[in-house]
């Protein structure tokens, strides 16, 4: 856009209208004027969210064929299919901001776009399917419920749809653990072990503490986010501790204690070095996840091409049939 006097004034006017709209809690829709930085922030956040849903299918996909019963298998299969759907809702929300699907995929393939670090941890036992549903989906729900009120219309609508589907995800996970803790000693140990491994990474899902979080403040001002990382993390801990008690499992944090004065649970320090190590690509499964994704993408290329070629052929045939009619 040329920087002329009149355009600058226009932009300032648009900015005022935009800020007032955010202030009134009115949603921003795709064709509305929005600041470039707002658009970029949303593309980054929504695509990262979409990539997380897609990569997030891998740790659970790992157990579909080994589910211990048909009931567990259909539930896990349906959950993983939902996650694919969540990825698709989110990609289509991101595309309304003027970025193409291919570019989004390419950013993930090139490692330019991130996905949630939680999916770089391995799922070692069947109990992990319980812990992932309970804790990972539980943490995601905290964040996603907040995002149903985000200021960008298509993102908010995708979140409403997603939240409706998430609650089954968490319940099926919790139910898996409920059964294990009622089982043999070995099964109970397996459930405890899964909680031990997934607890801290789940707390890290909310991102760095507020004082260290680079994008948070502006996102809050634009009402993209409505609660801070630390607020969400605290809400998650408060909601989850009583659920662990029902299971009779111990949360692996010696500092975890109810704080009467605050009306919240206090919890111990998070290992941020581990967090950054995984974010930067050195978690237990980063390479495996990307290798699998890349392989699936490349091996699917001929299908995408063939489908398009077939569609074009059918279209040509239809046109030919039409012109034949006209000639006759």
């Amino acid at each position, binding site marked *: 856009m040329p920087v002329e006097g009149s355009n600058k004034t226009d932009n300032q006017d648009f900015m005022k209208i935009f800020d007032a709209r955010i202030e009134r809690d009115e949603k921003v829709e795709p064709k509305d004027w929005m600041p470039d930085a707002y658009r970029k922030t949303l593309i980054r956040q929504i695509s990262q969210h979409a990539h997380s849903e897609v990569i997030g299918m891998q740790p659970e996909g790992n157990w579909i064929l080994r589910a211990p019963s048909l009931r567990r298998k259909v539930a896990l299969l349906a959950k993983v299919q939902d996650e694919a*759907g969540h990825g*698709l809702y989110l990609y*289509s929300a991101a595309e309304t901001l003027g970025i193409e*699907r291919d570019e989004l995929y390419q950013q993930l393939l090139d490692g330019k776009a991130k996905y949630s670090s939680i999916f770089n941890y391995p799922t070692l036992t069947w109990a992990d399917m319980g812990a992932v549903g309970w804790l990972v989906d539980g943490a995601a729900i905290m964040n996603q419920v907040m995002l149903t009120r985000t200021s960008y219309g298509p993102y908010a609508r995708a979140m409403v749809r997603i939240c*409706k589907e998430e609650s089954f995800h968490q319940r099926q996970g919790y139910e898996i653990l409920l059964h294990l803790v009622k089982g043999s000693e070995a099964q109970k140990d397996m459930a405890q072990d899964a909680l031990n491994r997934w607890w801290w990474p789940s707390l890290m899902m909310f991102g760095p503490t507020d004082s260290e979080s680079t994008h948070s403040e502006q996102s809050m001002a634009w009402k993209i986010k409505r609660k801070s990382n630390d607020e969400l993390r605290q809400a998650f801990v408060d909601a989850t501790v009583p659920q662990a008690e029902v299971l009779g499992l111990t949360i692996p944090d010696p500092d975890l204690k109810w704080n009467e004065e605050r009306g919240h649970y206090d919890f111990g320090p998070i290992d941020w070095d581990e967090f950054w190590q995984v974010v930067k690509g050195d978690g237990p499964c980063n390479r495996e996840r990307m290798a699998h994704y890349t392989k699936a993408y490349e091996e699917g290329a001929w299908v995408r091409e063939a489908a398009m070629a077939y569609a074009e052929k059918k279209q040509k045939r239809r046109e030919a049939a039409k012109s034949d009619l006209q000639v006759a």
Partner: protein
Amino acid sequence: MKNNWPIWEVFIRSKNGLSHKHVGSLHAADAEMAIENARDVYTRRTEGVSLWVVESKNITASAPTDADALFEPAANKIYRHPTFYNLPDEVKHM
């Protein structure tokens, strides 16, 4: 390789008696595949009894900058609403 599958907008009739409502979009090679994909992506929980798919490029939208010119004139025509007309209390339902 560029994925050149076009974008389709998806509309669902949640039950007979209601209109189709926009729910989102997806990519598909042609209309037939768009319907099949819409079934899988948007109706996994009996959300609908009928689907419409429209290739996005075929939709013409009004410009947000025209919104005032288009919709403002209706705002002050309060005489188009029933409450503009005063009737005595004895006339109960009208």
